[in-house]
C-alpha cells in the first residue's frame, strides 16, 4: 500500500461524514438472541412494575414476572438447542458480537436455571420474624435509609419492601447470559458491567447487618471497578495489537492468517502489546472467577451480602465468568497456548492450595463457603488448562454441578437463625444434627459434594476436570489438586463433626421452617447433587456435545 493511500485513509478519519454510508445497518438475529432479549425485556418491565403497580401487589407481580420470564427464556433456549444451534448450526450472531454455540447455550441454560432457583430464595418471606404483621424477606425495607434510623423504622412500619431486587436480578442475569457468549471484547466488557452493577447494589440490600452489607457492597464495587479497569486496558492493548476487538479477528491476527495492513505490520511487531493485553484481560476475568491472588473480595462480599444474593452470585457469576474465560482462551488465544498455559498453571495451583488452606481456620459458614468456592475455582482452572474439547466439556459439567450445590448450601444457611438473624458463626451450628437431623443431613450432603466424595455431583465433576487435565498432560496439577482437596475435606468434615458429634447448646439457633420456595430451592439442590453424582452420563453427553466453540 503506497504512502499516499495511507494518507488518504488517515484523512478519512478526520472527515467522518463520507464514512457514514460505509457503516452498514446492523443485522440482528432476534430469534437466536431471544433468551437474552426475553430476560432484558422482563427486567425492563420489572422497572415499570416498580413504577406503576401499587406496593401491595408488587411482590407478587415481580416474582411472577421473574419466574415466567426466566422460564420463557429457558424454553427459548431449549428451542434453540433443539434446532441444533448448539452443534451444527452454531455460528456468530449480531454482527459478530455474540456467539450462539454449544458452550454458550449450555452455560446460559445453567445460568437461567440457577437464576430461577435463586428467585425462589429471593422471594422467601417466612424466615425472618414478621414485622408489624407482615412477612418480610431478607432485603432491606429501604436501601437508602440509614440503618437503625427513623427513616428505616418508618419504612418498616409502612411495610416497604425492596422489590427492586427482582429487576436487578434479571439485569444481572441478562448480563451473565451475554458474558460467556460475547464474541468481541467490547461486548465482553459491557456484559461484565451489566451484570456487575446490579450485583453491587444487591449486595448492599441486606435487611440484617446492614453495615456489613454496605461494606461488602463498597468493597465489591471498588475492587470490581478496579478490575474492570484492568480488563479494559487489556482490551485496549489487544485492540492496539490486532486492530480489532472481535475474537475471530484477533485470533486470525495471532495466527497470522489475517490480511496484513501496514498498521498491523507495525503493531504486530512487538508482542508486548499482545502479551500484556492478554494478561490484563485474563486478570479481569480471573477476578470475577475469584482466583488467587484476585480472590480477596470474595470472603468479605460473600459474608456481607444477603445470603440469597451470595448464593446466586457464587453460583451464577462463576458460571458466566468461566464461560467467558474459556471462550477467550479457546477462541482468541489457542495460538498463544504456550504463553498463557504456564501462567494459568501457577494461578490454578496457588488458587487450589491457598483456598483450601485458609478455609481450614475459618469460623463463619459463609466465609468458609467463600474460601471453598475459591478452592473450587482452582479445580475448575485445572480443567480449563486441558485446552481440548475434553477440557471444555468437563468444565461445563463441573460448573453445572457446582452451581447447584452452592445455591443449595447457601439456601440452607438462610434457615439457621437466631435472634440476630442468620447464625453464621460455626460455633452456633454445634449439635444442629441433634436438633434437626434433616436440615443437617441435607447440609452434610452438600458438604460431601464440595469435598468430592463419590456418589455426589462434586465427585463426578472433580473427576471430570482432573481426568481432562491428566489427559491434557497436567498430571502434577492433578496431584496438587488431589492434595488440596484432601486439605479441603478436613474443614468440610469439621462442620459435619460440629453438627452431629457435639452436644447442642442450650441457647443454640433454631432452624426456621421455610416456605415451599426455599424448600424447593434446597430440594432442587439435593436432587441435582445426587442425580449428577449417580447418573451423570446424560449431562456429560450434553456437555460433551456442547464442547465446541464456534469461531
Amino acid at each position, binding site marked *: 500500500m503506497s504512502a499516499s493511500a495511507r494518507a488518504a485513509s488517515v484523512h478519512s478519519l478526520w472527515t467522518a461524514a463520507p464514512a457514514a454510508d460505509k457503516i452498514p445497518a446492523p443485522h440482528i438475529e432476534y430469534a437466536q438472541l431471544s433468551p437474552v432479549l426475553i430476560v432484558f425485556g422482563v427486567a425492563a418491565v420489572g422497572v415499570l412494575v416498580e413504577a406503576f403497580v401499587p406496593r401491595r401487589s408488587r411482590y407478587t407481580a415481580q416474582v411472577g414476572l421473574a419466574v415466567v420470564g426466566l422460564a420463557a427464556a429457558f424454553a427459548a433456549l431449549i428451542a434453540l438447542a433443539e434446532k441444533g444451534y448448539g452443534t451444527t448450526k452454531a455460528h456468530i450472531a449480531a454482527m459478530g458480537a455474540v456467539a450462539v454455540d454449544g458452550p454458550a447455550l449450555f452455560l446460559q441454560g445453567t445460568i437461567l436455571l440457577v437464576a430461577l432457583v435463586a428467585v425462589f430464595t429471593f422471594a422467601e418471606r417466612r424466615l425472618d420474624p414478621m414485622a408489624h404483621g407482615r412477612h418480610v424477606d431478607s432485603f432491606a425495607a429501604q436501601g437508602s435509609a440509614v440503618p437503625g434510623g427513623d427513616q428505616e423504622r418508618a419504612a418498616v412500619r409502612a411495610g416497604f419492601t425492596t422489590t427492586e431486587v427482582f429487576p436487578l436480578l434479571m439485569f444481572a442475569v441478562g448480563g451473565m447470559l451475554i458474558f460467556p457468549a460475547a464474541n468481541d471484547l467490547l461486548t465482553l466488557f459491557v456484559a461484565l458491567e451489566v451484570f456487575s452493577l446490579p450485583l453491587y447494589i444487591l449486595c448492599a440490600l441486606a435487611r440484617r447487618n446492614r453495615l456489613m452489607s454496605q461494606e461488602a457492597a*463498597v468493597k465489591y464495587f471498588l475492587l470490581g471497578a478496579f478490575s474492570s479497569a484492568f480488563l479494559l486496558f487489556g482490551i485496549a492493548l489487544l485492540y492496539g495489537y490486532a486492530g480489532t476487538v472481535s475474537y475471530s479477528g484477533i485470533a486470525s491476527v495471532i495466527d497470522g492468517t489475517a490480511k496484513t495492513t501496514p498498521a498491523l505490520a*507495525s503493531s504486530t511487531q512487538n508482542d508486548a502489546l499482545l502479551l500484556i493485553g492478554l494478561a490484563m484481560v485474563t486478570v479481569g476475568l480471573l477476578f470475577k472467577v475469584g482466583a488467587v491472588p484476585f480472590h480477596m473480595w470474595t470472603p468479605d462480599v460473600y459474608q456481607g451480602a444477603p445470603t440469597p444474593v451470595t448464593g446466586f452470585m457464587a453460583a451464577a457469576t462463576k458460571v458466566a465468568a468461566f464461560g467467558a474465560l474459556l471462550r477467550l482462551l479457546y477462541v482468541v488465544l489457542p495460538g498463544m497456548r504456550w504463553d498463557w498455559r504456564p501462567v494459568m498453571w501457577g494461578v490454578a495451583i496457588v488458587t487450589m492450595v491457598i483456598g483450601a488452606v485458609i478455609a481450614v481456620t475459618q469460623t463463619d459458614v459463609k466465609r468458609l463457603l467463600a474460601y471453598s468456592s475459591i478452592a473450587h475455582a482452582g479445580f475448575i482452572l485445572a480443567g480449563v488448562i486441558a485446552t481440548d474439547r475434553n477440557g471444555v466439556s468437563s468444565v461445563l459439567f463441573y460448573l453445572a454441578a457446582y452451581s447447584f450445590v452452592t445455591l443449595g448450601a447457601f439456601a440452607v444457611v438462610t434457615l439457621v437463625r437466631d435472634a440476630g438473624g442468620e447464625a453464621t458463626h460455626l460455633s452456633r451450628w454445634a449439635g444442629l444434627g441433634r436438633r434437626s437431623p434433616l436440615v443437617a443431613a441435607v447440609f452434610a450432603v452438600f458438604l460431601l459434594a464440595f469435598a468430592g466424595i463419590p456418589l455426589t455431583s462434586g465427585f463426578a465433576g472433580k473427576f471430570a476436570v482432573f481426568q481432562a487435565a491428566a489427559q491434557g498432560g497436567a498430571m502434577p496439577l492433578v496431584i496438587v489438586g488431589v492434595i488440596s482437596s484432601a486439605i479441603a475435606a478436613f474443614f468440610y468434615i469439621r462442620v459435619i463433626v460440629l453438627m452431629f458429634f457435639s452436644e447442642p447448646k442450650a441457647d443454640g439457633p433454631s432452624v426456621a421452617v421455610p416456605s415451599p420456595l426455599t424448600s424447593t430451592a434446597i430440594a432442587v439442590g439435593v436432587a441435582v447433587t445426587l442425580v449428577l453424582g449417580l447418573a451423570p452420563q446424560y449431562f456429560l453427553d450434553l456437555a460433551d456435545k456442547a464442547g465446541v466453540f464456534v469461531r
Partner: protein
Amino acid sequence: MNPANYLYLAALLFTIGAAGVLIRRNAIVVFMCVELMLNACNLAFVTFSRMHGNLDGQVIAFFTMVVAAAEVVVGLAIIVSIFRSRHSASVDDANLMKL
C-alpha cells in the same frame, strides 16, 4: 507527532489512577481514580484507532464513557449510603469483615 506518545500518556494516566486507588482513603477519590484509569483506557483506544485507521477504537471509547457513567451512578449511590450510615467515606473505616 508520533502517536506512541499518546500511549505513553495513557499508560502514565493508568498508573496514576492505579496508584491513587492504592493510596487515597476517601472512597470518592478512590472511585475517581478508577474513572481516571478508564479514561486512560479511552485515550489508548482512540490512539490505537488512529494508528490502525479504523473507527472501532473511537466507538469503544463512547461505550466506555457510558459504562463509566453507569458505574458512577451505582458507585455514588453505594458510597453515599455507607457515608450516611457511618458519617465517613474513608474506605479504611469499612473494616467490619476480615480474616
